């Protein structure tokens, strides 16, 4: 139980303040309160959905200001009538940065009329999430300002995440949506497509901007070009088969995605990886974070026309790739993590290699710092550009360096330590105004802090196995499989049956490079998860982008998007 152990004991379980307050306020409209692996889940009636969310947000004892995630779940059950009555679940995840607690709020909708009132009036971030739930599950959110398809093509037929939608079904959809917004016929403004393939768009996504000279008068974003429905694929894979898919989420720091996934599944299973595996995970996660920040800063300044810092910083990224290569043989999509540990032990000269890479990172961070931080052209491009206030950032569901840039010191590693982060001493940098410059400074400082963590983890690196000794979770070593009948049988059983977790649902979350990366797993006890929902940090972050650049200059839009570090693989899943 990686992250569950850190829940404050006084406020946990069904007597947690959130449950108490909702029970008192909603009375019979509160259907049930559950606590599984330390996750508090509250189910309310549909009529009380908006009221419950508002209460959670505004009640001083609860203060769930940070919108994390909203998703649909299809609980289709052919055997019972009840399955049809409560077929669709809408699941909301919230967090309170003041009280440091999570909550999961659920409601259900029948198959015949899957209507749920919208939460867009409560949380800004709910907008795209509800569109996604409509798109993938066909849940109608009444009152939503623009309930259109988000991830799939607008001519797509059906709702792909429904359990009765065949996994292998294909659509060929070619014609793009030409116009994303209405432009008055007599408008003198210029409609410009920025993306899906444009040098400033890191990945394939599209912003259509109505230009008034150099100023963006209005704009609309379109995503989904990279959508491959990872979540549907996950429903027909075993738990460890999903690991390679997670690499493709935020491919700039793929190790961290696998780390988060493994922790979420371990939380569901109620096991913990051995200390050595956890320490190596921390080290490689921190290197991945550095790598991701290098890409964020490097490409951001390339967008501003400064090409040298990019090359300076990418040298260190190359060194980190070599380190990963030495550990697992892959550079970009590492798939190094296993449920319950790691695929194999690190090479013998691991510490020396890490020290070399650390030195190189330190060098390039200092050099980039010298080239950029006090460069007047750079600061004039970044200061007071794309400022995002604290409350607004929370309402959009911002996390990670972007949220910290806006002045909220929320870091999962600090507030809900996992994988042994509590042993390491590090600081959480925060910004003041939340502009591009603050986000840049936060990332620069986080790289230094990551080096501190790696240094401590290397000093304490324990010896021992790197995967749990549990034949229901981890494959036995190959040498035993070939020499020992019991190991062979265990191997066979595990490959054939898969890991079988108990029924239940968990929300496992880690601090990814872009912020809280969550996996919401619904298990029915089978070898395949019933539902996997990724809570992608940059989905929330990018959602705010159109409103941030309206009224800004075109060049500012370019400066802002780089600093948000939107990764299409994670955005579109």
């Amino acid at each position, binding site marked *: 139980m990686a992250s569950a152990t850190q829940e404050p004991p006084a406020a946990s379980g069904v007597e947690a303040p959130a449950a108490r307050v909702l029970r008192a306020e909603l009375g019979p409209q509160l259907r049930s309160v559950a606590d599984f692996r330390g996750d508090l889940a509250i189910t309310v009636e549909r009529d009380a959905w908006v009221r419950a969310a508002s209460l959670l947000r505004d009640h001083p004892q609860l203060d769930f200001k940070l919108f994390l995630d909203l998703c649909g779940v299809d609980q289709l059950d052919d055997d019972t009538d009840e399955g049809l009555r409560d077929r669709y679940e809408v699941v909301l995840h919230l967090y309170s940065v003041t009280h440091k607690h999570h909550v999961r709020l659920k409601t259900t909708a029948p198959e015949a009329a899957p209507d749920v009132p919208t939460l867009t009036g409560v949380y800004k971030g709910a907008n795209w999430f509800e569109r996604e739930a409509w798109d993938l599950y066909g849940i109608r959110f009444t009152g939503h300002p623009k309930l259109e398809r988000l991830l799939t093509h607008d001519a797509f037929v059906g709702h792909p995440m429904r359990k009765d939608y065949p996994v292998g079904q294909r659509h060929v959809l070619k014609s793009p949506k030409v116009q994303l917004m209405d432009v008055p016929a007599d408008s003198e403004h210029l409609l410009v497509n920025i993306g899906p393939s444009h040098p*400033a768009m890191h990945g394939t996504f599209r912003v259509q901007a109505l230009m008034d000279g*150099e100023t963006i008068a209005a704009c609309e974003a379109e995503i989904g070009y990279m959508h491959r429905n990872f979540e549907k694929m996950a429903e027909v894979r075993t738990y460890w088969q999903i690991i390679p898919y997670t690499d493709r989420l935020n491919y700039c720091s793929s190790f961290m995605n696998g780390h988060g996934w493994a922790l979420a599944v371990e939380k569901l299973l109620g096991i913990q990886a051995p200390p050595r595996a956890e320490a190596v995970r921390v080290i490689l996660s921190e290197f991945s974070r550095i790598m991701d920040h290098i890409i964020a800063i490097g490409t951001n300044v390339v967008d501003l*026309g400064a*090409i040298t810092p990019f*090359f300076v910083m990418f040298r260190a990224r190359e060194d980190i790739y070599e380190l990963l290569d030495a550990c697992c043989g892959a550079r970009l999509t590492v798939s190094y993590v296993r449920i319950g540990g790691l695929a194999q032990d690190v090479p013998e000269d691991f510490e020396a290699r890490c020290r070399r890479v650390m030195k190189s990172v330190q060098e390039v961070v200092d050099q980039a710092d010298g080239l950029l931080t006090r460069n007047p052209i750079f600061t004039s491009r970044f200061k007071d550009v794309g400022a995002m206030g604290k409350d607004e950032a929370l309402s959009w569901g911002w996390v990670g360096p972007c949220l910290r840039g806006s002045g909220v010191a929320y870091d999962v590693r600090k507030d809900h330590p996992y994988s042994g982060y509590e042993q390491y001493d590090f600081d959480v940098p925060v910004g003041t105004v939340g502009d591009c410059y603050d986000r840049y400074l936060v990332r620069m400082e986080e790289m230094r802090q990551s080096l501190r963590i790696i240094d401590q983890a290397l000093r304490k690196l324990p010896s021992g196995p790197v995967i749990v000794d549990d034949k229901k979770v981890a494959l036995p070593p190959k040498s035993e499989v070939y020499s020992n009948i019991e190991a062979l049988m265990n191997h066979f059983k595990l490959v054939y049956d898969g890991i079988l977790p108990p029924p239940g649902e968990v929300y496992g979350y880690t601090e990814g490079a872009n912020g809280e990366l969550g996996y919401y797993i619904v298990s029915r006890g089978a070898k395949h998860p019933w539902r996997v929902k990724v809570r992608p940090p940059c989905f929330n972050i990018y959602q705010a982008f159109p409103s941030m650049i309206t009224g800004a200059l*075109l060049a500012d839009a370019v400066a802002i998007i780089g600093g948000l570090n939107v990764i299409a693989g994670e955005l579109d899943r």
Partner: protein
Amino acid sequence: MSGLSDHWAGLSPVAQQFWIAVLKVAVIFNVLLGLFSFMTYAERRLLAFMQFRLGPNRTGPFGVLQPIADGIKLFFKEEVIPEGANRWVFVAAPAVAVVAAFLSIAVVPYGGPGLFQIADLEVGILYLFAISSLGVYAIVMAGWAANNKFTMLGGLRSAAQMFSYELALGLSWVGLIMLAGSFRIQDIVTAQKGGLGLLNWFCVVQFPAFIVYLIAATAEVNRTPFDLPEAETELVAGFHTEYSSMRFALLQMAEYVNMITVAAVGTSLFLGGWLSPLPLLPDSPLWFFVKFGLLLFFFIWLRGTLPRFRYDQLMHFGWKVLVPVATLWILVTAGLVTAGVPGFRR
């Protein structure tokens, strides 16, 4: 050989002048072409070294034949004229760009009066000013004719940018004209001759004007940090997005030749042209090329160091900083010249 010299002697002085001019144009034109291709190579290599890369190093020794390979490749590329483009303007724009770029080099002196200059015009500086304004037409034409929104934005940006910075560029020369008392560039170079060597150069005497010139010249040739017209991350490739093959090469050539021109002009006007930096050493065209090379390096160095301005910052900087500074400095120079301060005496 003797036949040729007899023939030469038999020509009238006007005809002799004509043939000399033709020869000079031919030589300098070809040297410029060579220099342009060498600059593409030098820029890529130097930038690469600044960025821990190697740059092109496979074609010929140290990769020096890379520009030739690039040229051959560009010749054989398909020329695409986008649908809906204005054909004539689209085709004419690169030609205008190149012609405008090559014309201004005519008045730059590489050495003392006589052989080392194509045209020793009485109004050389005014000529430069006039010709350098032509380049913007090419960019606006290219941006507009392609019928593409990004090229149009790029064309408009550069029109605004070049108008603004041309003003500062011209103002930075006024002080020199006052000190030299002439519009002839040859006179301005010789006016920088004195007992103190490089301390007599206008880059020292007219230091603020020199800085204004460097900044305005960088903006004039659209190089980092003023490369907004082709800011690739905002405008894809700006005004030359739709160009391909040799027309693209011509636009590139125009840019490099413009850079060569502003470096050559800067060398003549501010760095003493062909004068030697130390009083003891003889003056020679060699000095010209050393200083000229340093200025070219400076432009590449800038590109390796700085990010790009934002459009509104660029306009503010041009109109609210550069133009006032240049104007103020003209007043100061005029005052000093009138008062007869040493160093400001004609």
